[in-house]
């Protein structure tokens, strides 16, 4: 699971008002190279919840992102590469995503989150 995906995921358990962001429990992180696509990065910059990305990235062991970011930083190659690395190249291979409200853990195995709810959670 990449942080791009993590930034989109939200706990959809019945009754949960604040399911985002899910806390990350790390068991194993893997880095995988991804082609640099500047259009995609600029597009994603306007979508991501920046604080959640910074926190997630730090949890995964990459603390190079600035605490705050604004669109002018997109002119900086250095910033773009750090953003790219955090968003696309860090993978949670094994671990869990934790609902911030209920503490319910969604497992991540072989890089795949399983977000299916149990009968009593829908």
């Amino acid at each position, binding site marked *: *699971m*990449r942080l*791009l*995906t993590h*930034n*989109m*995921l*939200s*706990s*959809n358990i019945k009754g949960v008002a604040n*399911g*985002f962001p899910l806390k990350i429990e790390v068991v194993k992180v893997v880095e995988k190279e991804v082609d640099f*696509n*500047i*259009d*995609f*990065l*600029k*597009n*994603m910059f306007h*979508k991501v919840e920046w604080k959640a990305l910074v926190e997630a990235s730090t949890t995964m062991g990459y603390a190079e992102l600035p605490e705050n970011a604004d669109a002018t930083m997109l002119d900086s190659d250095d910033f773009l590469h750090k953003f790219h690395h955090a968003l696309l190249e860090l993978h949670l291979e094994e671990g869990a995503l934790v609902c911030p409200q209920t503490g319910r853990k969604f497992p991540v195995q*072989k*890089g*795949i*989150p*399983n*977000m*299916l*709810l149990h*009968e009593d959670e*829908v």
Partner: protein
Amino acid sequence: MKEVGIDSASSLHTSESVGEAPVLRHVAVRPKCSSNVQSTPEIEKKYVHGVYDAIAPHFSSTRFAKWPKVSAFLSSLFPGSLILDAGCGNGKYLGLNPNCFFIGCDISAALINICSDRGHEVLVADVVNLPYRTGYGDAAISIAVLHHLSTENRRRKAVEELVRVVKKGGSVLIIVWAREQEDRSLIEKWTPLNQRYIEEWIGPGSPRVHNPSSPRILESIPEVEENGARERLKDRHANSSKVKLAEVMNSISLDEVSGASTVALASGLAKKDDKRGSVVYNRYYHVFSEGELERLVSDMDNAILVDRFYDKSNWCIILEKTS
């Protein structure tokens, strides 16, 4: 006395020959299980999820042909788009536009594992309840998925979810099997939901036999209301009774007997075809009639229909999110 015919509208029907007029009675049926639109009905657990999990490796290898209409849609999206594929199956559309990024989800962990092995970004999730923040995607696709949902409310909820997860101005492409089939030779693979499946099908959306003395007269019943109101079956004149073949089983045959199919055979999920030496599974489908997809979206106040077409025995719509 039952005939299966193909009428002039190229749709299947079953007709009862006129004999003794059956006595029709109102039967009030209270559904036994939760009518929550997000709870998975039994028929889907067994004849959709169970089947795809069992056939996943085979399904993956036979599904490489990409529909040109889907390719065209994906190619039309602006470079750098984030595309969400809900019900991505073996992932054949993931990555199809190399300038975009795809995130796929499917309810079958077995199929998602195959996508992941191919390097795609995927997760296990339910299209009826997507674990996604609102408005994050640029576009969404759901190809050959909604016809596996067994109630109108679930199908509508899935469409609402697809629209919810894209940004304002984002597009959604939905493709489903049509009741109006072009290739008549394929029709032999389809069987209407018959008595045996009716008994197994508990919960909202299931057709009910409302005439015990003539069990072959089946009818789709109206949706149960979410507040648990009782279903009521409409009165029908005997002569106009037809099987509503929107609810069908489609058989899929696999040549080899694998470990998964041995288990499936033992549990009754699959049958052996000794003549051909293959293993046969049945998948549940609700096939869509012309106009049905449009009706499903007609009440939506945050999306408009921008295109509709029929392609190779499938009904297709493209929606645009307006707010």
